[in-house]
Each structure stands twice: as C-alpha cells, then as structure tokens.
C-alpha cells in the first residue's frame, strides 16, 4: 500500500481532492478588562457597526446568545472581520457598555480555517 501512496497523492492533487469540512466551529470568549464574569451580552446584530463578516464572501452572521461565558456559532472557514458595541451584564448585576474592535477591518481580520477555533475578545468598557 505504501508504495502506491505517492500515486494516490498525485491523483488526489490532480483531481482536486481536499478536506471536505468547510465549517469552523467558532467559540468567542468575551473578556472584561478587570476579569469580571459576564452573565449576559447583548449585541444588536442589525446595527451596521456590529458585524461578524466573512471577508471573501461578505456573508454576515448574527451574534448568538452568550451561554456559559461563550458565544458559539458555526461559520464558513475564512477570514473574518469582527466588531461590535454591546451591553454586558456582569454577574454582580451591573451593566456596562462594551466595545470590541480588534478585528474590525480587512487588514486586521482574523483567519478561521481550522475545524475549531476559540477567540478571546478583550472588551473595552465605554464611559
């Protein structure tokens, strides 16, 4: 079998075989500057300034609800621009306006081409 491996690989390359998983299981972990626990995060996906957008296809995704301190969603593999303003409800019961812009443009977009990706999102607290 081993001696046929180069032939199989060559045929695979020629015929366009590739991994068939086109999806990335994405986990977003928003993080407060002081490390406070976030109980809920409200992001209005309908606002133009709030986006999770595939750079190549320009497809946008809605932000899911925060569950267990994480936002989980399935996205097409690719480069993503992520930016949002939201309201974080802390476990202490206080609410704070927060912002995330680290991946806001094409030039600093994040590459998500693995089957599973976890991103930590350091939030900025707005006055």
């Amino acid at each position, binding site marked *: 079998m081993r001696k046929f491996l180069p032939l199989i690989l060559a045929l695979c390359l020629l015929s*366009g075989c590739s991994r068939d998983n*086109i999806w990335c299981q994405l986990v977003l972990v928003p993080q407060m500057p002081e490390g406070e626990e976030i109980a809920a995060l409200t992001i209005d996906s309908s606002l133009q300034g709030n986006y999770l957008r595939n*750079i*190549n*296809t320009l497809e946008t995704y809605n932000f899911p609800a925060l569950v267990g301190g994480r936002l989980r969603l399935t996205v097409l*593999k690719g*480069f993503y621009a992520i930016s949002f303003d939201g309201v974080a409800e802390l476990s202490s019961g206080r609410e704070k306006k927060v912002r995330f812009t680290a991946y806001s443009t094409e030039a600093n977009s994040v590459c998500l081409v693995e089957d599973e990706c976890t991103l930590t999102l350091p939030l900025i607290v707005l006055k």
Partner: protein
Amino acid sequence: MKKRLLILLFAALPLTGRAQDSLGVGARTAARLNPLSGEAQTLLYNAAPSFTQVDAGYLLRAEDQAFLPQEGRGLGEFFVKADARHRLNRNTAVSGGASYRRGVRRGVFMNTSSDWELLYPYHTADTVGGNLQKEQYSFNGAYVHRMGRWFVGGALDFRALHEYRSVDPRPRNITSELNGSLTAGLETGGHALSARLLIGKYHQSQDIEFMDPRGHNTSILHMTGLGQHYGRFSGSGSSTDARFRGLTAGAAFCLEPLSGEGAFARAGYTLHRYVRHIKNQNEAPMSRLYVHEVSAVGGWKNGRTLYRGTVLYEYRRGLEGVLDVKGAYQSLTDLPLYGQHRLSARADAVLNFPGASALWSLRPRLGAETLQNANLNPYRALSLTAADAGVSACRLSHSGKWVFLLEGALDGHFTLARRLSLPSEKTDPALLGIYSALYGRWADHWGTLRLGSSLTRELSAGMALNVSLQAEGRLYATGHRMGGVSASIGLIF
C-alpha cells in the same frame, strides 16, 4: 480579411489531390453524406472516402427570450472553413481543418466571460449585458500510420477566440486552447483495439473596462454556484480582471471493426481543471473547477444499420479559495462549495434503406438525463430530470453530376422533474429574481424541427460545387420561440 482567407485556403490545399480513392468527386460526396459513414474513431478505418471541402457561409440564430442568457439570445456569424480527410496510401491517413468565424453574440446577460459552458459556475457577470463581438480561428490536424498489425497516430487542435464589447461594461476576452492526443493500437481478431492519451491547455485573459464619463453602470461579479458570487472582489475596479488557466488530461480506449461491420465500443475519462485568477491582485487563485468526464459508447453496425448506446457522466467540483488579507493574496485553503453531477444515457440507431434512385435513412433516438447541482454556502440546490426523443429522416440521391441530400428532424424534450431551492436569505434580491427566472425556464418542455438540404454539382472530374441550407425552429411549452438558419457555399475536391 483577404489575408485570413488565404491562410485558410493554403492550410487545406496541401491535402488536395493526394487521395488514393479512385471515385469521382460526386460519388465520394455521396458516400460521405451517407449517415452511416464517419462512425470510426481511427482515420484508417473510416469508410468514407477522401475529400477536401472549403465553405463560406452565414449562421443566424435568435430567441425571443434566452434559454441560457449567459450564452446570449442570438448569434449572427459569418464563417469560412476548410476540412480535409485523405488516405495517402493503404497504411497512412491524414485529416486537417481550419476555420475562421466572425460575428456577434446578441443579448448576452449575466456573463462577461467567454466559453461559459466550459467554465461555469466560475465566470464573471454583470446585470446589464449586451452584445459581444466575436472572432475565432481554429486549426486541427491528425495523422495515423499502420506498421504491420500496429498503428500509431497523433492529433492537434488549436482554437483562438477574441470577444469584446464596445459599450460599458466592456469585456475583452482573449482565449487560446490547444489540445493534443497520441494514439497507439493493434489489429487483432478482425478488430482494431487502440488507446489514446489526451492532453490540453486552456487560457483566457479577461479585461473589463468602463469608459462612460457619467460613471459606471454596473458591478462586475465573480460568480460562484447557483447565483452566488465572491463578494470581496466585486465592483468596477481593477480586481474584476480575471485570468482562467486550464489543463486537460485524459485517456480513452476504443474497439472498432476493421471491415467497418461489427461491434464497436469506446470508453474514456477526461479531467479538466480551470483556475480563475484575479490578474491585478497578484494573480490570486480565487476558484478552482475540476470537471471529471466519463463516457462509454457501445454498438453494432453493418452496411445498412447502426445501433448505438451512449452513457456520459460529468462531475463538476468547484473549490473557492480563502484568500489572505496581507497583500500576497495566496489561498490558505480551498473550500469545496460547489458540485454538479450530470448523468445521461442515450440510444440511437441509423437505418438505411437503399432504393433504386435514392438512399432513404431513418435515425430514431431516445435519451434521458439527470442533473444534481448544489452550492453549499449559502445552500442552494437544483435538480432536474429530463427525457428526449426524436427522429430524423433523410433522402440522399446521386444522379449524373448531381448529389442531393434532403433531411428533416423532429425532437421533443420533456422535463420530468425539477426542484429548485434558492432561499432569499443571504442573497441579493435582484440576483435572486434573475436566477429564479433563469432556472425557472429549465422546467420548460420544447419541440424542435430541423430541415436541411445540400446540393452538390460536379464541375469537373475532381471538383464540385456545394450549396447547403439549414433551418431550425423551436417552440417551448411556455410559448417562447427560437429560430435559426444557416447557408453556405463551397467547393469539394
């Protein structure tokens, strides 16, 4: 223009006058027009006698609404072509051809690329459309030689196409395609068994300009599957210029009777790969299309009849590149987002009835086709099952210096099932409307009537004049219509 015609004529002239056939040009023409001739894949076993033919003509086709808008709803084309096939001696045969075509494809819509049928779904498009001027040259040649029981051969085929539009949006597409094949075979047991290797190269360079000082009237879209497009490089700037690079490789096996009577079979596999690059973005490999084709043909024939079955399977697999954002525009990975399976099966027959003054021929045919087409993100799907049936009849007569062929054909195409899923989610409403209407037509049924005639008059022992006329009309169940005519005049040597 005069120079081009001379080139075509000179390409054909070396083959004239070398024929080993002793028949006059009228008898050779009648033999070649016999519906049973031309089935042989290897030149040596082709029963039709040698000939050279040079034609000039005009082709006109028009639809009231395009069935395939990407190909246009009309075509007007002048052509001049030369074809020749000659048996130089008992063991050697050659063929050659050249053609020049100049015309206009009218009403091309949702497509600015050439060769849409080769490249889809990865072509460029705009929502304005218009006429495309076209100019095409093609040359081909083949040679086969027998040494004892063995024979070897080769063939080359070249095509150059230039298409452009002189109003916005202004694509200018320059295409070249070169295909070659090598054949080796053995005569054994009354049959010739041969193997053929194919290789080819394709290139299309596409530039799109906007020159109206009032501004750009549309955006150019890099289409993906079923009406989707690659949004990052859409627009009207330099990132809309594309380059398509293609490679073809394949193999085929063929079994055919030496005497021209008996069983025959062919089977082959061909792989085409087309990569779409963005020219002005460091040749970014935006998408790759792999087209796998498997074909099998089997049948039996004798001097009066031919029965044939054909099965074709095609799998188009499209991969879209995840292009980086750091300026190098390399593809980090390719995502298999598009697939199309197409399977067709066909049976046909040729039944010749020689009469005292003419040969009558009937060609019944029956076929079925199924197509499954899907784009995975956002999910879109199209499936289609269709059947067709038809019959042709022709009358061929050779009397004195005249050879006259009259033929008619009637075909029906019936769409048995069609399922289309184009959810509005994540789709531009304008594109959704266009593609819903476009694929809506695919559920249509239609009938086609073709009539043709060919009149040949011997001018001397070695030369004849040929005039051909063809007309075609198609009526769709939805009331749409298509019509076409072509006329040509030529010399046969």
